[in-house]
């Protein structure tokens, strides 16, 4: 117990009496965590953006004009019964016409063409959202059952298919790039931490030698340095937690407005995963700094 108290006392003294070195090491720890959190933040925003775009993808199934309401209802029920389908929205011919007019309000040529056709060229339709863009092919195939096929005029999936494939390919690449970026910054962070601690230990090299020469055991010399590494990791994590939570709180409203998505809450993401994110960062940082300390101090203990 006495020895543990002494280790704590020496750690406190070292932190205080080497305040500048402690501050520099702490700053490096904070900057490293900042990099990690920045990559994490970008990944969250990217994933949300991808999700937002994917949610925008819908497939319209147009009915042959005159299709009975019962058939349309049956198609809707059938589609909703598929596990791949998220939502099914029914658009009547009148709604479709109105939507078309609204969309092309600024284009007199299109509106003139519509007048030329006369009447309502649109039929009823259902707009289907899938749980995943990969599911659209299945949904389209599923709707081509002999029971419903005669009532279906067309699906506009063909146009979407290319977009969905491109989107899926792009998002996969984006995710991979995010992982590579995270790995790259992770590696840089490790090297920075490694060097920061090596420098800190190097500054103390004479002290370590003297401690050995006056009869200190290796663990007694090592313990304050290890405790210091853990304390600095903890302090850096606390600072970074504060910075991340404050900045995500401030960013939430502008980001939601930009992406037009109510469920994109970085603050919500970081608070609901706080233990995993910040706990993980603390454990990672502490383990890395402790291992580096053990490694860096080793050669100075050979006296």
């Amino acid at each position, binding site marked *: 117990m*006495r*020895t543990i108290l*002494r280790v704590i006392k020496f750690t406190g*003294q*070292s932190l205080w*009496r*080497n305040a500048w070195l402690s501050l520099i090491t702490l700053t490096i720890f904070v900057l490293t965590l900042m990099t990690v959190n920045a990559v994490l933040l970008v990944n969250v925003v990217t994933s949300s953006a991808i999700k937002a775009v994917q949610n925008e993808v819908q497939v319209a199934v147009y009915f042959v004009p005159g299709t009975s309401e019962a058939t349309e209802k049956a198609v809707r029920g059938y589609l909703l019964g598929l596990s791949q389908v998220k939502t099914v929205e029914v658009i009547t011919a009148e709604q479709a016409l109105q939507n078309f007019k609204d969309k092309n309000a600024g284009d007199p040529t299109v509106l003139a063409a519509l007048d030329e056709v006369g009447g309502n060229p649109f039929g009823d339709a259902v707009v289907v959202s899938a749980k995943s863009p990969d599911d659209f092919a299945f949904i389209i195939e599923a709707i081509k059952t002999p029971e419903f096929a005669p009532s279906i005029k067309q699906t506009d999936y063909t146009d979407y298919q290319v977009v969905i494939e491109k989107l899926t390919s792009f998002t996969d690449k984006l995710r991979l790039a995010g992982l590579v970026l995270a790995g790259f910054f992770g590696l840089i962070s490790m090297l920075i931490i490694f060097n920061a601690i090596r420098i800190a230990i190097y500054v103390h090299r*004479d*002290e370590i*030698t*003297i*401690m*050995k*020469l*006056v*009869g*200190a*055991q290796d663990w*007694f010399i090592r313990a304050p340095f290890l405790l210091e590494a853990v304390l600095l990791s903890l302090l850096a994590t606390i600072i970074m937690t504060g910075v991340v939570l404050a900045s995500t709180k401030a960013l939430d409203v502008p980001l939601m407005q930009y992406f037009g998505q109510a469920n994109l809450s970085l603050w919500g993401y970081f608070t609901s995963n706080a233990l995993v994110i910040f706990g993980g960062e603390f454990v990672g940082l502490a383990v890395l700094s402790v291992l580096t300390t053990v490694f860096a101090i080793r050669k100075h203990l050979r*006296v």
Partner: protein
Amino acid sequence: MIRFTNINKVYKPTTHALVGVSFHVKPGEFVSIVGSSGSGKSTLAKLLFAEERPTSGKIVVGDWDITQIHRSEIPTLRRQIGVVFQDFKLLGRKTVYENVAFALEVAGAANARIKEVVPQVLKIVGLGDKHGRYPNQLSGGEQQRVSIARALVHRPKIIVADEPTGNLDTVTSREIIELLKKINEFGTTVVLVTHDRDIVNALKKRVLTINNGKIVSDVEHGKYMLG
């Protein structure tokens, strides 16, 4: 108290720092080990507190054969031998009191004992009023006194002083040697490694002379023999 038997120390690849060194130091003796730079006298001192290991031969301190001392036993040995260095080797970010107390703290001494012993030892070395100073606030002589106080704090049976006056002026050197003599009078064995002719001649104690790694003379009440 200290017995070296046919000690050889070779630094790779071919530097023979010590060649067939044998001697015996009795309890309570004051022995000066003299020699010019590179003669091997500091290597000899380092062997005593296990900073170096002999290539061959046998070293016994008290009843302890430290020739092949295990790494984990070195701290115990160093707590039994007080060592004074030429460059003082003080912890720059600890006060005078903390530097001396540190030697007891590493050995797990009780706080009450530390509070009792450290002021006593600092008083013996004449630094009773400088507990709170840091090493850089002290003169060279004062720093060496702190180093001696730290070496004494375990009440060791042996003190090894490796060129303790090497960084000090003549007057301060004489004061440090007087302090070591006083410690010796209390019964502590002192091994003084030096190349200072005046000090050795003034001491009139046993002198072991080393040249090219070999003991070339061993004289009671000896003098500095080298040119």
